């Protein structure tokens, strides 16, 4: 009679593959017999000699393919994610003066009053945007999130500008 395994009885047997490699359930008597122990010792010796014969396991074609693809992925990640300079601070200007220079590393909503009314700005852990503005054009709101040092959003009618500052700005001024 075959006893159901505790693990397999708790879960559905997927057995997607490697079924043929399933270790046969050996009987207890077999396992604790004297011959079983000698066989074990022999198997360990065999394993050691096999390891000496093939110190490095051979990679299959697909393995090389996987490694190559992974390497490309890593390089791509470095190129895309480390290329742009991260911004650490936000400078808000209102009219001719600097209203505030704030850390970007926070969640905060600001309400500023300009010539046209109230503008709402939201800082959200590393990014910032105009959330609401009293102007008709809404260009500033449509700019969306700013994330990289050097990015600028301006609300001309309400005379409020946002600029992201970083250690290394990729340019001194923006031509638009």
């Amino acid at each position, binding site marked *: 009679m075959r006893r159901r395994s505790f693990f397999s009885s708790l879960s559905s047997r997927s057995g997607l593959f490697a079924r043929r490699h399933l270790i046969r359930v050996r009987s207890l008597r077999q396992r604790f017999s004297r011959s079983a122990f000698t066989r074990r010792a022999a198997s360990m010796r065999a394993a050691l000699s096999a390891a000496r014969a093939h110190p490095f396991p051979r990679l299959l074609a697909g393995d090389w393919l996987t490694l190559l693809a992974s390497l490309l992925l890593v390089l791509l990640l470095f*190129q895309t994610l*480390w*290329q*742009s*300079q*991260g911004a*650490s*601070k936000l400078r808000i*200007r209102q*009219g*001719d003066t600097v209203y505030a220079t704030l850390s970007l590393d926070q969640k905060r909503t600001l309400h500023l009053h300009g010539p046209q009314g109230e503008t709402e700005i939201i800082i959200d852990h590393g990014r910032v945007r105009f959330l609401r503005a009293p*102007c*008709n*054009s809404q260009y500033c709101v449509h*700019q*969306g*999130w*700013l994330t*990289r040092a*050097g*990015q*600028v*959003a*301006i609300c*001309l*009618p309400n*005379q409020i*500008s946002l600029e992201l*500052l*970083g*250690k*290394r700005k*990729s*340019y*001194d*001024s*923006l*031509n*638009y």
Partner: protein
Amino acid sequence: MRWLARQLSLTVLLLLGACAGPPLYQAQSYVFGTLVDITIYGAPEAQARAAADAVLKDFQTLHQRLHAWQPDSELSQLNRALARGETAPVEADLADMLKEASQLSARAGGLFNPAIGGLIRQWGFQRDEYTPVDIDPVRVDALVAAAPRMSDLHIESGSIRSDNPAVQLDLGGYAKGLALDRALRQLRQAGIQHALVNIGGNVIALGQHGERPWNVGIQHPRQPGAMATVALQDGWAIGTSGDYQRYFELDGQRYCHLIDPRSGYPAQHTQAVTVLIPPGPQAGTLSDVASKPIFIATQQQRAQVAQAMQVQHVLVVDEHGQRFVSRAMAARLNWLDKHAKTQLLF
């Protein structure tokens, strides 16, 4: 692993960074209906502040005199007189400006035309804010048919008159560039050696930023942030005309402030044109003026128009976002987006 550790600590430093910088003084103000930014490098703060304030004050004065829709401005008074067919008195410096604008208009084959104030008003761009207007084809056609041209103006010692009452002056594509040239002269006189002046995106460089030249980003016409950067050497100016600065949208169509004087309608086949102008007394002016006719011209005409404007450095982004650069411009641009595909303009 050590390499990784070093890279990581570098990243952390970059993230934490942004402290003690070089001696930079920055002044910002809203003039010409746009943001003006003056950055001065390497001068004592008091001197820098005084120089920047003087320049901003000059801008403010110029803006008030050349304002196209404030009824009491010098230009508005002149426009009313021209519409009545009268001969009007004009200040000497304004007369010089109008002469220069006429020459540039002629060079651009009329594609730069400061006499079409009537059309600009019709399209609603003579306002502080742009809201969709009801398009009136009959009125637009009438304004085009009236054919206001700078050559209709007759400027003689202290007075001005027009053969064509439809001439309505709007120096919107000229004043900011002129202001750049004036700012450069003023800053030099004030003993400033290194500065960068930005009027609503048009930039002129004086000296450099420490050991390196001033670096200017070129705005991506459809994304926040720059698409390329360019080193702006001493005396060089850069200007962009884009359909993304002043426009309104109506029924899914974008109508920008750059109006084709031939059709009377906003040009819709271009997203942005950037020109780079070498040092000279007119560098700022040309950086403002020269991009407009190239923006309005058809793709086939662009090279010819650029040559007529004596501009070698041109970058065009067309309606599909495709980028065209002149050979000279290609050598100056650093694309931030490395996969950028560009085609040769001329």
